[in-house]
């Protein structure tokens, strides 16, 4: 169908305008990460691209000090980065394994018919409204500020997403394929292991990335359940201040960039399935 040139121009105008708004804060943060101290504010004039681009900010957060800076950092990014990575990955494993197994049982054997909705309800409530007993329990179990304590809560909180996402992928596997394998002599376990699981492998990868993004993006749970050793990147970023009380814009921006990269990359990789993940499978693209 022919699109008239004038409407196309109008469309590009709006699209470019929207893109500009989307990119505006992003560009400010990214360039900030490469700006030296004098350019952090607009006092000396607004600079979009750094006039004197520098790795200083990154150097500082990785090594605790950087050339030309008088301040130093008693705690570098290394610890929080590893904490984020470990807890996000472990949480993802818990959520994906439990979610995959249980959603398969729901889809194929019609077990626990109320499970899907009760799992969904878990996601409904503001976490802060239900965190008191969790904090008490975690303290009781000695799970506060441990990698496994945080991983466990991540796994539980993202389980609904994993469950629903995997459910939609299992729903798409025709039962005849499993029947065919059973006719060929497979037990239920072998059907699952040899046939269904390999078929949903792309879905499994999508699910894992999706859940990882959610875990990686958490701020609140880590804030509540960690103190020092297992503080994650967002918490670390938020608390980063210099010993001298100055606002460390450049370093925070550098941290923000590092924290933002993995979810954006993974998110763009699973673009196609974002809708079904975020709407618990109610919608597909």
């Amino acid at each position, binding site marked *: 169908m022919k699109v008239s040139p004038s409407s196309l121009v109008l469309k590009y105008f709006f699209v470019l305008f929207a893109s500009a*708004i989307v990119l505006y804060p992003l560009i*400010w943060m990214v360039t900030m990460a490469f700006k030296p101290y004098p350019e952090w504010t607009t006092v000396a004039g607004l600079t979009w691209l750094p006039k004197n681009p520098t790795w200083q900010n990154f150097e500082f957060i990785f090594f605790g000090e950087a050339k030309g800076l008088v301040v130093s950092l008693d705690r570098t990014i290394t610890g929080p980065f590893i904490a984020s990575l470990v807890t996000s990955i472990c949480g993802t494993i818990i959520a994906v394994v439990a979610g995959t197994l249980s959603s398969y049982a729901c889809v*194929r*054997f019609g077990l626990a018919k109320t499970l899907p909705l009760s799992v969904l309800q878990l996601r409904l409530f503001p976490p802060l409204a239900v965190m008191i007993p969790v904090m008490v329990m975690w303290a009781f179990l000695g799970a506060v500020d441990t990698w496994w304590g945080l991983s466990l809560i991540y796994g539980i909180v993202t389980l609904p997403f994993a469950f629903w996402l995997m459910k939609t992928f299992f729903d798409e596997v025709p039962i005849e394929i499993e029947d065919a394998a059973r006719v060929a002599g497979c037990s*239920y376990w072998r059907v699952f292991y040899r046939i269904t699981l390999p078929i949903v492998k792309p879905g499994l990868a999508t699910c894992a990335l999706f859940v990882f993004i959610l875990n990686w993006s958490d701020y609140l749970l880590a804030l509540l359940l960690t103190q020092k050793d297992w503080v994650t990147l967002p918490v670390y970023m938020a608390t980063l201040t210099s010993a001298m009380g100055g606002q460390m814009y450049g370093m925070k921006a550098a941290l923000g960039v590092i924290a933002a990269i993995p979810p954006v990359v993974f998110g763009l990789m699973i673009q196609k399935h974002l809708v079904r993940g975020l709407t618990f*499978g109610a*919608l597909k693209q």
Partner: protein
Amino acid sequence: MTDITKEPENSTNKQGYWASVARDGKKMGFWFILPTIILLLFIVIFPLFMQLYLSVTWWTPLEGIPWYRAWEVFSWGDNYVYQFTDERVWGALWRTILIMVVAVPAQFFLGMSLAYLFMDNFPGRKIFYSIMLTPMMIVPAVVGLMFYLLFQGTGPINVHLGLPTTFSWLTDVNRAMISVIIADVWQWTPLMFLILLAGMLGVPSDQLMAAKLLGGSNWQNFLKIILPRMKAVIIIALVLRAVECFKIFDLVYIMTKGGPGVQTETISVFLYKMTFGEFEWSYVAALGLTILFVLSILAAKGLAYIAKKDG
């Protein structure tokens, strides 16, 4: 004839319990579902009772009484009564609702307009689509940081708007809330866009073409064909976002810490402050249960809708 005894994987423990599980769908389903059930019990059923228990006491972690002995400071329903007269609760609730009624419709209209722009193919659509989705993939705490940087007196926004560096956003009584809402709209419009676009593309293209061939203008077709067909999707999108409003925390806390004063103190921020600032844990437990109760009722309809759609 196929013989199970020849099945290589099972030949060693053919008589064992696990072999019988593998051949019995119901049994295997039970084992498959067990981890989830345990996790759910662990995080839902047990804590729920504990929360109920704590909410009727004066218990706080500061006094050194273990939680199981909280009955020693039994308070009956005082926490529940108090919350209804607590002005900070009403204030936080009001601000949360304010964010909801401003930010969610704004996200909806912006998302709908963007979705309409992206409905047909145009050169570069894929790239722009990816750009549009980026905000919602960024860690909310980082978004908070980004807008924290933008809204500094010495930040670029004031320069672009021609305002002096003394013009403050985040520390101003009125403008702090506006800043927070802008950040929230920036981050979550893409989600609206994504969901609404999926719904829009779900309108059968031949029906749209049929409407065009019958002479309907684009606007007429949008109103009479596309919009009515998107009803379910619109409900899903609005319910999802409205519920999320009660969860807003990262953004606000990093941008303003709920301030100045309590000007941006939403329900979640209030709960956090009560938890870690004041250590009023039993009060938080009571308030949390109340919120749980109210939200369940409010969202029940929306959820039922989603569930029905899902079969």
